[in-house]
Each structure stands twice: as C-alpha cells, then as structure tokens.
C-alpha cells in the first residue's frame, strides 16, 4: 500500500492501473528483494564501517581491550605529535607539486592529440597505458630510474645538476614521487580534457582565426573557458587522490629518508596495522575525511561564485 501512497505524490509516468492494488505491492516486494543483497552488504561493509570509522576516532580502541570514549584525546595527541604534522606536511606538499603539473601535462597531451592525424589514436593509447598500470609495479622500475646511477640522475648530470639519487634526498624525494604521480595520472586527465575539447565550437575558433587571433589568444579566449569545468573536475579528483598517496611511497621509499616522504595514509596504516592503535588510526582517517570535504566545499564555493 505504501507504494500506492507514494505514487500519488509524485508525477505519474506510467498508467495508473499498473500502480494500484496487488500489482503495486508485488512491484514493491520485488524491488526490495532485488535491492536487498546489495544494500545489506553495503550497510555491513561500507555504510556501517564508514560511520564507525569516524566514531572510532573518538575512542581508544585497540583489538582485544575494552573501548572507551575518550572525546578529543586522539586529536589533542595529534596536535602534539610531530610525526602527524610531518606526515600532513608531506601529504600537502606532495599534492601541491603533483596536482598542478599533472593537470598541465594532461592539457599538453590533450592539445597535442586533439586533432585527428595519422597515429593520433596510437599516441592516445600510449599515454593512457600508465593509468591502467598498477603503481606498485611501476614503482619497482622507478626505484631503479631514480637510483644513484640510474637514468634520471644521469639526465640531471647532462643538465649540469648534481648526479644523485632523488629518493634518498629529503628535499628531492617528493618531487621524484610527484614525477611518478604525473606519469601515472596525466593520461587520465588527457582523456577527460579531450572529451571536452570535442565540444569547442569550431566556428568560433575559425572566426577568431579570421580576426587574426594567434594560437595562444585562441586558446585563452575560446578553448580555455570551455575546459573550465573539466579543470575543476580534475583538480578535485587529483587532489583527493594525492591526499591518499600511499602505494608508491610504500614501495619506493618506505616513508624515508627520515620521514621526508611519510604521508598521512602511511601513518594511518602504521598506527592501525603495525601498532594496533586503531583509535588513533581512525582519528587520522577523520583528518583525511575533513580534508576531502574541504576540497569539495572549496569547489562548491568557487563554482557557486562563477554562477
């Protein structure tokens, strides 16, 4: 009967006779039955734990012991934990380096492969390949690329810079990791931007050309405004992603040298699964959650101002 009542309040899209009586009840039963397996698993393994994870941040949970609500204790401890400030700084610095360069590289690749030419699809396929490649596998070879006698330090030598391993230098380890991040992500941004570039009205570009606008002016006044939503989308996705950086660091540096690449998720992993300090790990998870929400809010605000 509930389905009937519901159907009265919403616009009718189907003939009324389908919604009345036993038919509607059957429909409701079937609907519930079909949703149930997925929804129950979702409650048990995503919704429930998602909420519980945020709540655990306010407890002293460790496996086996009794649990107490400790209020803001974990967060007070965090404020006085130099390792937390260090991992937060690493995470933010990494993102500040990686995100803009990833988007810039994505834009470069998109503009290069924008117009169809012989082989343009092959180039796109090549640029997308790192996106489907596990960062763990890629990291095993990037360790060698960034090693002391590896190709990257040789390349730096050719440019007149010191030949050294970027992974063992605390000032250079984050730029090195960002390079890996850019390599692995820019093919994704390229595809997102290519999809938007299809929508740029060609007549506008031609008209601008007739008016004597150079390639840079055409890009700035005609193409870039069209790409704006895609840039926002990429900025949010890539920032959220890089806040969660862990895989490449775990394999390539283990957080070193001297915690110079020890990220927030790395600390969460160690706290929770190495030291079984699951309450503190959850509190770190809360911080990650807040960071994610802030990125989304900033996006909302900026988009709101645009409108």
């Amino acid at each position, binding site marked *: 009967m509930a389905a009937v009542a519901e159907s009265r309040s919403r616009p009718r899209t189907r003939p009324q006779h389908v919604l009345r009586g036993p038919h509607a009840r059957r429909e409701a039963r079937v609907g519930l039955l079909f949703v149930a397996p997925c*929804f129950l698993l979702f409650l048990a393994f995503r919704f429930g734990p998602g909420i519980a994870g945020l709540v655990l941040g306010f407890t002293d949970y460790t496996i086996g012991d009794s649990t107490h609500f400790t209020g803001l204790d974990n967060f007070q401890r965090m404020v006085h934990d130099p390792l937390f400030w260090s991992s937060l700084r690493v995470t933010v610095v990494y993102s500040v380096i990686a995100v803009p360069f990833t988007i810039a590289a994505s834009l470069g690749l998109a503009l290069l492969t924008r117009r169809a030419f012989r082989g343009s699809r092959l180039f796109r396929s090549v640029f997308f390949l790192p996106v489907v490649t596990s960062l763990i596998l890629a990291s095993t070879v990037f360790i060698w690329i960034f090693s002391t006698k590896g190709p990257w330090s040789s390349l730096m030598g050719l440019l007149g810079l010191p030949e050294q391993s970027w992974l063992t230098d605390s000032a250079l380890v984050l730029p090195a990791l960002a390079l890996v991040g850019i390599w692995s992500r820019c093919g994704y941004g390229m595809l997102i931007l290519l999809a938007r570039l299809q929508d740029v009205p060609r007549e506008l570009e031609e008209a601008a050309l007739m008016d004597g606008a150079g390639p840079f002016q055409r890009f700035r006044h005609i193409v870039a405004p069209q790409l704006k939503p895609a840039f926002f989308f990429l900025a949010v996705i890539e920032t959220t992603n890089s806040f969660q950086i862990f895989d490449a660091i775990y394999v390539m540096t283990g957080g070193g040298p001297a915690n110079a690449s020890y990220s927030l998720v790395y600390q969460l992993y160690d706290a929770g699964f190495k030291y079984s300090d699951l309450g503190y790990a*959850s509190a770190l998870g809360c911080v990650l959650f807040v960071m994610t929400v802030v990125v989304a809010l900033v996006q909302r605000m900026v988009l709101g101002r645009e409108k």
Partner: protein
Amino acid sequence: MTATPTTYQDTVPRALRPGRTGLVARAVLLTAASLATVFPFYAMVVLSLKPGAAVELPGSLLPWHLSGSSYGAVLDAQDVPRWLLNTLVYSVVSVVGVLALAALAGYAFAKKRFRGREAMFWSFLSMVMVPYHVTMIPTFIMMAKLGGVDTYWGLIIPTLANAQAVFLMRQFIRDLPDEMFEAARLDGCGELRIFVSLVLPLLKPILATLGTFVFLWHWNDFLWPLIMGQSSGMRTLTVGIASLQQQQVPLSQVLAGSVIAFVPIFAAYLAGQRYFTEGVTGSAVKG
C-alpha cells in the same frame, strides 16, 4: 608529415591545421612525451631479462645478452604462481559479484517503486565523501573477529557492494523504455525471468565497461589485500611484489615479477582498449 589533405581527416578545416613549424614542434613534443611514457615499461622488461648484470648505463638498456633466468628464479623461490591465482580469484569473483549485485539493485532503483527507495539510494551516495581508509579500519576489526583475515571470503565480500557501480547501473537502466518490461510482465513472465532474459542482455555495454573498470581496480588494488593477506600464501600480486622489493630480492627478479603481473592487463588493454578508457573515465565522471 606535410599539410596535405591526405594527412588529416577532411573534417579539420584547413585554416586550423598547423603550419610546417607547428607540425615539426608537435612531432618533437609527441615523440618526447611518448618516450617518457614508454621508457619505464621498456626498462622493466629489458632489465628483467638481465639477471646479475651490474646495472650500468647505457649498456644495461640495450636489448641483447638477454636471459629469462630471473623469471625461473622468481617463480621457483617465491609464491608468484599462488599470488597470480589469488589475484585472479580476487578480481574475477569480485567482478561477477559486483556486476550481479549492482545490476539487480540498479534495476530495482530505476524501475521499481517501493518504500524507502530514495533513502536507500541516498545512503549509497552519502559515502562518496568518506575515504576508503576510514571504512577499512572497522571492516578489518570486524573481519578479525569473524576470522576472515587471511581468507578469500574476508578479502572479497567487503568489496562486493560497490556504490559507484550501483549508481552507474541505475543511470543506464533508467533510460531503457518501460514498455518493454510491461509487455513481458503482461505475458506472464516472472520477475527473475524478466531480469535474466530481458534486462541483462540490454545491459551488455555497461556490463563490459563497468566490468573492465572493476576488474582493473581489483587487479591493481593494494592496501586492502595488504591488510587482509597476512601470510605469503594469501598475498595478491601487488602485495607480493611489494614484499619482494622489501626482501632485497635482486632487481631483475623483482622486475620479472612486475612483468608477470603486468602482462595480463597489457594483453587485455590491447584487446579491449575502448572498455578501459570508457570504464575508467566514465565511472569517474558520473560517479
């Protein structure tokens, strides 16, 4: 390349085609970018075939004096075949489970009316902002209590209810015409029959792209299998290869492991590239 019409698709207007300098610049940039993209893959393969070589540039990168002995060594000394099996089980079972559950739920959300439908759907969406790392901790605790750590079911079951997949399925099914299902129902077909023989075949395109996306995601997943696979025999390939790296196994053997883990994805990418690009971009844009 010259700016003759045969080089370009005729749809690109002559005025917007780059001039000779532009063409040269583009060719140079494309070549540089391609080399930078491909180089790690090339190095991975070549160095995996050079066991025991002191890695010196540029000699070690030349494609001769190759030997496959690192592959034998890594397959013998480590649990690589077992890791491959674990990865396959994790990926394949998850794809089948996620697709089946998401198709059923997406169909109900799109085409059935029942009490609580909107609330349930919004609860799926509400978790979008909560990072997986938050969820992972209580899920692990639960699995530790249920004895699911270091088992297949403990690894797989928590990943089956995929909100993104449900959302995409609902979007897709909503656009299918109602009349078709009504006709089948009036002909007296049972609901499950309608779902299996009428709905599922229509879902082929989304099943293919979503399936590819979910498969790739599980194949490359790291943190969850790392936490759940505590013994060597329960590691997936990504976790196993990370452990090789940490055991100071010789470089060529680590890279041989990486190549073994990469080849299936690469082969699938060559065969069905469209599904990869649509799966990865489509899932993210809409989800």
